[in-house]
């Protein structure tokens, strides 16, 4: 019988979990219908956007009327972040400044003047911006969110061999139940084989439970470190792996300190090696 269980270990992992993270503009080349791994796995379902820059030429909208501080919709949505340029006229004799004179909602494709800025109320402005072509899941591509892979479909609008930009969210937390269950078995095994006479796998001392929990956490963190290096091909893989490894060492030390009264020293060393 294990000294700890999945819910207990999960509770401890809450503090170590990574919050949901948005990743944008990952460049992925899609060839044929072959599956390509994204830099991250464990993605939030339907959090993705797959896109291409619509044109090398910026879009121009003339005579966009700005009223009060209300957002005025532009013709297109899904604008390229930071690309909007607003001028009083087409010849750009007066160029306005974002955030001081106007604000842009890039996702919705909308523009608003800022109160106290240089754009007079009820004025028409000229707007240049870049925009994305957005692709549809199912019709143009398929995604496996848990494993973080993407592939073109056979009838995709995405040109074969094109390098697209992919946005997605990495799911909050990385506590995978299967890994937790595995490390509980491993930690229990190591502890049981190190127990002093008088203690057995059925012992219910709190120290054993606490020690087992920290040892399971240490093994889990070690597993996560390896996972970061194998599944996370992003630029943060190395630093994340190091953080997990550092946690693993810390939890391992705590575990064996707590377990000290219950185990024999030479068996601890043997157990630690395993």
């Amino acid at each position, binding site marked *: 019988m294990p000294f700890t269980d999945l819910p207990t270990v999960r509770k401890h992992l809450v503090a170590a979990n990574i919050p949901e993270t948005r990743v944008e503009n990952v460049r992925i080349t899609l060839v044929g219908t072959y599956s390509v791994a994204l830099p991250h796995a464990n993605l939030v379902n339907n959090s993705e956007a797959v896109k291409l820059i619509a044109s090398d*030429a*910026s879009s*121009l909208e003339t005579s966009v009327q700005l009223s009060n501080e209300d957002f005025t919709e532009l013709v297109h949505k899904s604008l390229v972040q*930071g*690309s*909007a*340029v607003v*001028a*009083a*006229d*087409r*010849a*750009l*004799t007066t*160029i306005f400044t974002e955030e001081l004179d106007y604000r842009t909602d890039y996702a919705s494709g909308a523009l608003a003047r800022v109160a106290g800025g240089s754009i007079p109320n009820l004025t028409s402005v000229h707007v*240049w*911006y*870049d925009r994305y072509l957005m692709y549809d899941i199912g019709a143009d591509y398929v995604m496996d969110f848990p494993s973080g892979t993407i592939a073109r479909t056979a009838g995709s609008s995405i040109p074969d061999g094109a390098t697209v930009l992919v946005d997605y969210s990495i799911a909050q937390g990385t506590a995978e139940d299967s890994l937790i269950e595995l490390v509980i078995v491993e930690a229990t095994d190591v502890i049981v084989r190190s127990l002093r006479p008088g203690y057995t796998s059925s012992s219910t001392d709190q120290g054993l439970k606490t020690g087992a929990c920290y040892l399971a956490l240490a093994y889990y963190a070690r597993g996560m470190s390896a996972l970061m290096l194998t599944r996370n091909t992003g630029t943060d893989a190395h630093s994340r792996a190091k953080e997990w490894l550092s946690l693993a060492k810390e939890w391992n030390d705590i575990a064996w300190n707590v377990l000290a009264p219950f185990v024999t020293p030479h068996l601890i060393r043997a157990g630690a090696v395993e």
Partner: protein
Amino acid sequence: MPKPTLGYALASQPLMTMHFSGAVTTSSVHLPTAGGVAADGMPIPYGGTLIKLILFDGSTIHADTDTIAFSANDRLSLYCQNVGSNFTVKARINGVSTTLQVTSVPFNSTLQATLVFAINRV
């Protein structure tokens, strides 16, 4: 940091200059442009925006700014209009005066002027 879109917008609206010069008396006349022809317009193959007129009368610089759109194939000219004791020199589109103009230009002077405009490259 300048936005790439701004670079694109500026590049798609290049500034052009058109030069005029001639000796005037007191009569209202078009100021001659390239080739010395004094008429009501040199055609421009792109649409654009008149933005500046600057004129030198031999001793004084006169200047005005505005934003006046014109269409592809419109004709641009400068017209010296007698307003009593001097000229008002007006930028014209297809022979029609615009609000881009300079005042108090003396009679009987030699004028050199530059009309500045942006063309809609795209």
